[in-house]
């Protein structure tokens, strides 16, 4: 459904992504793991058109979207939940959700989706009139996801949903993501530093290091690989904290 071929991006002179290829099949959860500054977020930004791809191509369904504007890409059905949530902190929870549906014209269905979203994340219904900046970190992450879902994407790009959250909130968010995938059939491309959580959820994964894909495969294979266990799953330290 999504095909990225030989993608390169630059920030000024810095070559952030150096020839990355990946694909996401319909209904699939794919994880993109790797350390800080590996280029994971940049890959997502290039797909959603926030950052320009300097070469390579991004194909969505039948058509190429490499050089489309972010508005167009959103309208075609790729929603991006940005890193660090980036809510409209001075606006209410409800206004954030309404803005999520900005690209849509079907007003009646937007209203229905608002109700549906508040059913899916009951806390957002309870906090409807509250300023979004006053929510807790986990609630903010739920709002950020719900806001992007209001655009009715077919593919969700999720950037570090676990960032800065308590472990219990992380599992709750992951439960919701799993539910969205299973019930709605939503395809998800997930970027995470928390490799253990990401590989627990995804069916397939890619490992990114300094702008290049260094490994890819089904999650069971990845989890079994010595390389990954050593670098990302903290093998040898595991017994100490578990």
């Amino acid at each position, binding site marked *: 459904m999504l095909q990225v071929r030989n993608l390169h991006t630059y920030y000024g002179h810095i070559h952030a992504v150096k020839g990355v290829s990946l694909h996401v099949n319909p209904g699939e959860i794919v994880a993109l793991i790797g350390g800080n500054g590996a280029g994971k977020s940049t890959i997502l930004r290039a797909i959603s058109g926030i950052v320009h791809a300097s070469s390579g191509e991004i194909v969505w369904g039948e058509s190429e979207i490499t050089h489309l504007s972010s508005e167009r890409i*959103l309208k075609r059905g790729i929603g991006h939940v940005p890193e660090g949530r*980036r809510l409209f902190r*001075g*606006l209410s929870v409800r206004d954030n959700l309404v803005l999520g549906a900005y690209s849509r014209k079907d007003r009646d269905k937007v209203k229905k989706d608002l109700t549906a979203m508040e059913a899916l994340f009951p806390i957002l219904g309870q906090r409807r009139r509250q300023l979004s900046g006053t929510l807790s970190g986990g609630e903010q992450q739920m709002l950020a996801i719900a806001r992007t879902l209001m*655009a009715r994407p077919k593919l969700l790009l999720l950037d570090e949903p676990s960032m800065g959250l308590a472990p219990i909130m992380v599992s709750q968010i992951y439960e919701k993501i799993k539910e969205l995938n299973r019930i709605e059939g939503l395809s998800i491309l997930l970027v995470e530093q928390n490799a253990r959580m990401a590989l627990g959820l995804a069916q397939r994964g890619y490992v990114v290091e300094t702008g290049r894909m260094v490994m890819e495969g089904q999650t069971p294979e990845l989890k079994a690989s010595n390389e990954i266990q050593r670098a990302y799953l903290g093998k040898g330290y595991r017994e100490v904290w578990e």
Partner: protein
Amino acid sequence: MSVYILHVLIMVAIFAVLALSLNISVGFAGLVSLGHAAFFGIGAYTSGLIMIKGLSFPVAFGSAGIITALLGLALALPALRVKDDYLAIVTLGFGIIVSITFMNLEITGGPDGLVGIPPVTLWGNPLYSKPGFLLLCGVVLGFMIASMYTLKNSKIGRAWAAIRDNDVTASFMGINIYGYKTLAIVVSAFWAGLAGSLYAHYTAYINPHTFGLHTSIMILSMVVLGGIGSIPGALLGAALLTVLPEVLRPLADYQDIIYGGLLVAMMVFRPQGIMGRFKITEIFGRAR
């Protein structure tokens, strides 16, 4: 009602339109402007010149709005490449350029200003009476207030609120940031032009001095004092800063001290303005 009170009320109404117009760009969309008096002036000169040439008031009034809006577009296209404090500097420069232009063009009467601007004429009758003019200003203001509320709660208003709050995220929502920012400046300029037209035909005489930095800062003070983004706030700010100098007239020697002191006290004790939710620092020096 005495003529004096009517005069003050008319000035309140004109400055209320002006403050509300600045509130569109500063309050709704979060674009700081230190050159708003330039739009006020462009409207005043346009309308004055058109009526001096013999055209009717409705034509002059409409053209004042449209021509000012076009100049707003001319400013917005280059100026919106920068934001926050840099945008403030660009608008400051724009204000200075416009006021120097008024000062030097022959058609605007140079430093002497434009003399003998005809009064408003409606259906062929000149409107000399002050109550009549106040009514006209009231109608324009009423129409503007209604359209401000409509605009604020529209899809456009929501896009502006999103941009004001966080413009990067607004682009994630599929909002065309550059387009909506430009629209805010253009609509803001349009209404400032209309206010300028009312002012020109009311005073019958305008000069470049009225449309300088001093006035730009005063209009911004009205919006900030009332509360950035708040419609009743802008009205209240305009009323206070128009009436206050009149009330303080007996203390003329100390007027500026009291006036300045009040603004400082406001910034210390209620930086979000009387009715607002946002502090000016949130729009000016946003974390980048």
